[in-house]
């Protein structure tokens, strides 16, 4: 059976970005990023399981600029996915469907992500600075 090539919806490009839609698509993107992060999680655990030498190699890699960049990205993605995931769970039990609640929730998620990520890295660098 041959079918005509018909346009597929949704035509995302014709819509103006809204907090609801942007946060929604970010949930998928951050989830995809975290799936990549699971590779790091497995590598780090495996390196530690093989012994001190392989663990030292993993620690060296994670503390290069590239390693820090990845860890920073994973931490931001993790906080975002976690906060927005809780927002989804609240919807699932039947609360927060009014437009203003959806908008406020989205802003709260973005603000919490930024705050938690910055706080975490301040704490990490303070701890690393204190140790050396």
């Amino acid at each position: 059976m041959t079918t005509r090539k018909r346009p597929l919806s949704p035509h995302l490009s014709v819509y103006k970005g809204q907090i609801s839609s942007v946060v929604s698509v970010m949930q998928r993107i951050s989830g995809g990023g975290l799936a990549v992060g699971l590779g790091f999680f497995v590598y780090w655990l495996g390196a530690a399981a093989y012994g001190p030498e392989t663990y030292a190699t993993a620690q060296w890699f994670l503390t290069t600029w590239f390693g820090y960049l990845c860890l920073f990205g994973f931490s931001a993605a993790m906080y975002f996915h976690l906060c927005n995931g809780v927002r989804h769970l609240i919807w699932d039990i039947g609360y927060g469907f009014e437009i203003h609640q959806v908008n406020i929730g989205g802003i709260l998620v973005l603000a919490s992500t930024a705050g938690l990520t910055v706080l975490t890295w301040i704490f990490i660098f303070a701890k690393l600075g204190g140790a050396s």
Partner: protein
Amino acid sequence: MTFRSAYGLKPGSKRSALGHARGLGSTGRGTEHWYWERLTALALVPLTLWAIVSLVTGVGADHAALKVWMSMPGNMTLMILLAFFFFWHAWIAVGVVIEDYVHHEAAKTGGLIVLKFACILCGTFSTVSILKIGLGG
């Protein structure tokens, strides 16, 4: 088993598959994926918070310190549960992403098979690693 008999139609029946299916109602299993995605998410909320706090407070720890930390039964249990729920959640959620965006039938089926084997492999390897770190000499 033919396609028609697989769906409960008697051999030789003149009834169409659509006529048979109509009016049967829901299978009652339509929300299964949705339910387990939420259940694993619910488990991961406290587990990831605990993991982040543990990781951040343990920054700069050497291999010996990690072994001591992992050898505590509570930490080991939560680490294994974390790995288990991480890969269970990824199994469902990455599967949904593949189903939504990969439209080539063979690539979609292959992708889902690779995803599921990868989740089982990585989940098992993580668990073995956690046990080795905590229990190994």
